């Protein structure tokens, strides 16, 4: 059974429009959307509902972590919804629906991140794989480029 789970809330020290831009502008996006120490080897975005994106994160050791997804909804500057999964042949790789909700908090922005899992197994696997810690690293990068 599907389940929508709030993954985390995180405050970014930048205004909402700037944070939305960082998610949707390819040049800005490449600067932060990866764990600390990683880089983006490749990123493509077709920014429209139904449009696809592809991201290759590169570890310090040179290993590539490819993901691929589809934009579901883009509502500037408040909401981005997409489905994504690993772009390789691993097993149990069903796409996860992710909602990114951006709320203005004074001159800062709260990012609320929700995932809708397709099964209890997928939820357990995702939540025990360090997904929250991973997102926190992404957002630390985002905070650094947004200030």
């Amino acid at each position: 059974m599907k389940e929508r789970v709030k993954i985390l809330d995180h405050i970014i020290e930048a205004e909402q429009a700037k944070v939305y831009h960082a998610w949707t502008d390819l040049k800005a996006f490449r600067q932060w959307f990866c764990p600390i120490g990683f880089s983006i080897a490749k990123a493509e975005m077709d920014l429209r509902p139904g449009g696809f994106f592809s991201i290759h994160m590169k570890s310090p050791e040179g290993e590539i972590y490819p993901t691929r997804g589809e934009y579901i909804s883009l509502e500037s500057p408040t909401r981005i919804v997409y489905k994504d999964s690993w772009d390789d042949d691993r097993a149990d790789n069903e796409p996860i629906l992710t909602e990114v909700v951006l709320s203005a908090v004074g001159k800062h922005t709260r990012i609320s991140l929700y995932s809708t899992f397709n099964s209890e197994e997928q939820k357990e696997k995702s939540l025990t794989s360090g997904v929250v810690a991973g997102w926190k690293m992404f957002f630390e990068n985002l905070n650094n480029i947004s200030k």
Partner: protein
Amino acid sequence: MPLPSLIADHIKQVYVGGNWTAVNLRDTLEGVGWEMATKKVASFHSIAELVYHMNYFVTVVLKVLYDEPLKGDDAVSFDCPPINSQTDWKALQKRVFEEVEEFAVLVAALPEEQLWELIGDSKYGTYYRNLHGIIEHCHYHLGQIVLIKNYFLQDR
């Protein structure tokens, strides 16, 4: 734009605006306090009952989008919880608007081919029919809410 995204937009628009009629639930409920929302005109349903009823079917289909069975009952679809204060009334509205946001996200994420599948028993028809049914239903009852509100405002 994919069809599920278009349908999701239509659902959101009747609640928060951007639709062709330029009448939406959020703007219509502006200035409607809990006393007006619960007051009856003749034998009509109150505004609060209509808001609850509009959203009842969103709640039913939302559960289906989370893979639960389709379970709805017209007989209880007007059974709005008691509203005895502005806090109660605001809480109902908050739940309704949050739920429709969640609903629209899941509708937009549906694979297009699923729109043509049956949503449950064949008598209910396809996802497409039910999602459009919800939009039609919301516009129908929104019109009633507008009329009841105007009646109270003229009565002042």
